[in-house]
């Protein structure tokens, strides 16, 4: 409990820092630390699956994305402080925020005891999914439609991001090409980390059916490794029109849809699995899904096409 009190104070303190810091880069660094602390809270709240996701995606990839952006924006961010709103607006914003916080605190204290929960129902039906990790059972079986649509959300964010490219760069590779530096520190780090990272990613994905982990956490680490390789100049991001890249992007959701639609015939409903094969079918979905999600996440960090297409 003392640990929790310290953690809560730290999280709020770092959050205040990210809001109050004058320098955007410093604020973003604060946000990365904030994410890692929040991941610890998730551990304390007995949600290890979420803790992994928060650390890898919420803090890691999001942090990387924002750090990259703040570096590129550089000086303009400092200039924009000249546009600070007037005292009246600040006061109004503070009032609204305090009211919202106070209201939420009251609601937290009013939450019913004992709390309503679906845990017993999840437990009672988990045998039919062949899984042991209840969170994976929710994501891949009970609420599989959410997961399927969510992967589509990721893909659409990517299509939307690509559509921002200037016309003459369409078909080019996303992001900037980093020069390879065989003797550089980053190259060394990448060469050491890549094999380890990929093994960790495979492990986290693989244990997802029985232990904390799964396709989203594994995919995030895969994506991080890809980004590391491109940052070190070991690999370039493939051009957005390459057929193999497009197929890699859609493989996961396509297999998900195919097995989901087959559910009409073999299990009586869309996205239903016959109990005997549920575990196998979910695994068949998860492998390409992990690869597709990893590719999408890495490309979302890379940004719109910025390199001249090769004609």
């Amino acid at each position: 409990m003392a640990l929790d009190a310290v953690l809560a104070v730290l999280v709020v303190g770092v959050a205040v820092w990210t809001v109050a810091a004058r320098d955007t880069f410093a604020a973003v660094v604060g946000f990365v630390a904030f994410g890692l602390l929040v991941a610890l809270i998730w551990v304390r709240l007995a949600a290890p699956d979420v803790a992994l996701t928060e650390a890898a995606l919420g803090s890691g990839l999001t942090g990387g994305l924002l750090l990259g952006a703040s570096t590129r924006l550089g000086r303009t961010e400092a200039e924009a402080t000249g546009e600070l709103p007037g005292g009246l607006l600040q006061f109004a914003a503070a009032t609204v925020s305090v009211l919202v916080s106070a209201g939420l605190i009251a609601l937290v204290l009013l939450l019913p005891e004992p709390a309503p929960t679906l845990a017993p129902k999840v437990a009672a039906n988990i045998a039919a999914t062949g899984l042991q990790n209840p969170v994976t059972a929710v994501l891949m079986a009970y609420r599989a439609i959410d997961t399927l649509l969510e992967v589509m959300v990721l893909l659409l964010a990517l299509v939307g991001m690509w559509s921002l490219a200037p016309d003459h760069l369409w078909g080019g590779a996303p992001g900037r090409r980093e020069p390879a530096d065989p003797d550089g520190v980053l190259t060394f780090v990448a060469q050491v980390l890549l094999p380890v990272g990929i093994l960790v990613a495979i492990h986290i994905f693989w244990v997802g059916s029985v232990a904390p982990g799964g396709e989203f956490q594994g995919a995030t680490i895969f994506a991080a490794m890809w980004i590391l390789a491109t940052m070190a100049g070991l690999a370039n991001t493939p051009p957005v029109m390459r057929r193999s890249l497009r197929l890699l992007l859609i493989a996961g959701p396509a297999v998900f849809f195919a097995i989901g639609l087959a559910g009409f015939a073999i299990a009586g409903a869309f996205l239903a699995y016959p109990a005997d094969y549920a575990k196998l079918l979910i695994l068949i979905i998860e492998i390409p899904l992990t690869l597709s999600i990893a590719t999408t996440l890495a490309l979302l960090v890379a940004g719109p096409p910025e390199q001249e297409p090769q004609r």
Partner: protein
Amino acid sequence: MSIAILYGLCSAVLVGLGLFALITHPQPLRKILAFNLIGSGVFLLFGVVAHNGAAAGFGGDPVPQALVITGLVVAFASTALAVALLLRLFQETGRATLQSDD
């Protein structure tokens, strides 16, 4: 005070703090950061609800926990698209501001 209530208070403060930053920061990147703070607060509330619902041998209700994973992925996609728009705006105009020119 239970840890659920403690982190519930934490979540409420984060939402308010993020909201304040979203309204008052002029820089779009800081607004995107603020949006992520609000998101963390809201997700933590899911965690609190999940923790309250611990039953059937699970340390927490798995349903809200799973929803947070979906939510985190969506929040990342939002951040990525917003950052891409912001960087394109910067490339085109040399400025990164939402204020209108006219």
